[in-house]
């Protein structure tokens, strides 16, 4: 079997799984997995392929959710348009916040995005006439061509084309010449600049595209649940998307869906006998970061490639590619091995 056959087979299985999911699990959980997966993919697009950790993506997910919910409630906009307007609203927010955030890199970028998301949280909380403040937007009834879609399974299949469009878009971005420039920027921004790429513009566009995917997912999420609450824009939501991404494997794209699935299934299962969910999530964070940095998908791909003896097409397989803080060398300490962060990141 050549790689192409394997890949096509993989997509076929993925598609069948996506179609069958509401029959395997209950439909709301199935929809959650796909939407959180898209959300986590949008985080991975920045983290895995530009080397920027956004800790504020809840602002795009949440704004998408509120915008879609508000338009559905106020003018009964059909669900595909409501979701797309939600994504558009996220894009409008991403332009100024991204413009400011990409002035920083590394750990600064994470802090700045986190801070902007907190600002959005306060604004949403205060804008009671539109968002309902602490009560949120209740009773969003999604419609299509004038008739309501009440059944959860029906909405799952109604939302599926839009979600698959989001997945496809992420795939296209990563595998386009644009995506390759992003990886070049991640590995060595100075070199990409020297080659004549306006790296700032590339990073901003990547940020905006990532926000679009988050907004689309968030819009469908609030439509799927019939309400939009403050939790959508809470900082812990940004953290959840990040943990899904690293659980699946940074820079693996599809790993994010797997990470979302495992995370949500685990929560669903654990919620029957414990409510210490924060302890569980925190432990997942610590375990992955300390000893499982490739993530699940990354580990699978790695062992697969090692058996075949090929290097694989994605360069991040060796070690997750988070770039170093600009100008600050990673600082190995005595008695420890030198920094194994993707070696190319060090100029």
């Amino acid at each position, binding site marked *: 079997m050549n790689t192409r056959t394997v890949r096509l087979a993989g997509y076929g299985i993925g598609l069948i799984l996506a179609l069958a999911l509401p029959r395997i699990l209950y439909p709301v959980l199935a929809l959650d997995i796909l939407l959180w997966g898209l959300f986590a993919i949008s985080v991975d697009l920045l983290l895995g392929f530009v080397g920027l950790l956004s800790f504020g993506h809840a602002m795009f997910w949440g704004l998408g959710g509120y915008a879609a919910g508000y338009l559905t409630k106020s003018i009964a906009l059909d669900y595909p348009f409501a979701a797309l307007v939600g994504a558009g609203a996220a894009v409008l927010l991403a332009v100024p916040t991204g413009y400011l955030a990409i002035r920083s890199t590394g750990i600064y970028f*994470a802090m700045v995005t986190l801070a902007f998301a907190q600002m959005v949280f306060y604004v949403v909380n205060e804008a009671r006439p539109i968002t309902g403040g602490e009560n949120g937007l209740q009773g969003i009834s999604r419609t299509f061509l004038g008739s309501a879609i009440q059944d959860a399974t029906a909405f799952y299949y109604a939302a599926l084309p839009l979600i698959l469009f989001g997945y496809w878009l992420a795939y296209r971005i990563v595998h386009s010449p644009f995506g390759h420039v992003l990886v070049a920027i991640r590995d060595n921004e100075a070199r990409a600049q020297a080659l004549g790429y306006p790296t700032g513009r590339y990073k901003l566009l990547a940020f905006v595209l990532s926000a679009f995917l988050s907004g689309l997912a968030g819009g469908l999420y609030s439509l799927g649940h019939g309400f939009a609450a403050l939790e959508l824009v809470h900082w812990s939501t940004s953290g959840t998307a990040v943990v899904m991404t690293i659980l699946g494997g940074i820079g693996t794209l599809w790993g994010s869906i797997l990470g979302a699935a495992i995370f949500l299934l685990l929560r669903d299962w654990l919620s029957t006998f414990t409510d210490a969910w924060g302890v569980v999530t925190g432990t997942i964070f610590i375990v992955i970061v300390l000893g499982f940095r490739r993530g699940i998908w990354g580990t699978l791909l790695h062992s697969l490639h090692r058996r075949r003896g090929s290097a694989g097409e994605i360069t991040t397989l060796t070690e997750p590619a988070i770039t170093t803080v600009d100008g600050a060398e990673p600082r190995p300490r005595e008695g420890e091995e030198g920094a194994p962060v993707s070696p190319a990141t060090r100029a």
Partner: protein
Amino acid sequence: MDPVTLLPQMFNGLVQGTFYALLSLGLAIIFGVLRVVNFAHGAFFMLGAFAAYILLQQSGLPFWAALIVAPLVVGLLGMVLERTLIRRLYALDPLYNFLLTFGITLILQDAMRLRYGMQGQPYAPPRELAGATNLGLFFYPNYRLFAVLFAIAVCVAVWYLIERTRVGMIVRAATEKPDLTRALGVDVDRWVTPVFGFGVGLAALGGVLAAPMQSVYPLMGAELIITVFAVVVIGGLGSIVGAIVAGLLVGVVFGIGLAVVPPLANTLVFILMAVVLLVRPAGLFGSVEAA
């Protein structure tokens, strides 16, 4: 806006600002020596307040004793976490430790929620500081006056420690050129754990000071730490003076915001951060290379 309504709010903002300053000061010292942005700083602040509360409930330890004991206990916990977890990731990108400390935050918060619930626990101010003082234009609670003066005194003491003593010199040298400092015969690694414990202790001290002003609850540090990140961006990461000045500045801006445009007060901090990013991406007191 007449000064009689504006001034008390500015004072309240200043009180808030001293907490920002205490927390961002600890963050700055830790980042300087360890290159770790400690997300769990807010959680340690919360643990400081809980330590004071528990000490009072369990062993009847008064506020004044808690002011010393709680930072020591929480600082010790920080040192244990540094030794067992954070230490393992120094060789990697700082983002990994950011994620690790985020995980620690979730666990600490949830553990306190499971034990004490989401409801706030009351913590009365010490009897010696009950009542209020006439400041000419308005009355102001004695405890808050004490908290401001005490926190500022701690900030100044820490500044003195870093800038004027031999220990501070080592810390500053290790911050700027760790390899060169090592080459000159200073055992930098020996200072890593104590510095982390010290920064965490400062956060816990802030928590003890905050306990009598607000109730003690598991999420009290969570939103604070995000605002403190904005403060750090404004002041410039790793700058001691920047941490203190930006903390107080942001607090006062917040206080004025509460008096003039209450719905926007929380947002103002982040607008200020956006302006600083636009004009001086390295922060008000940060060096350009650090950004």
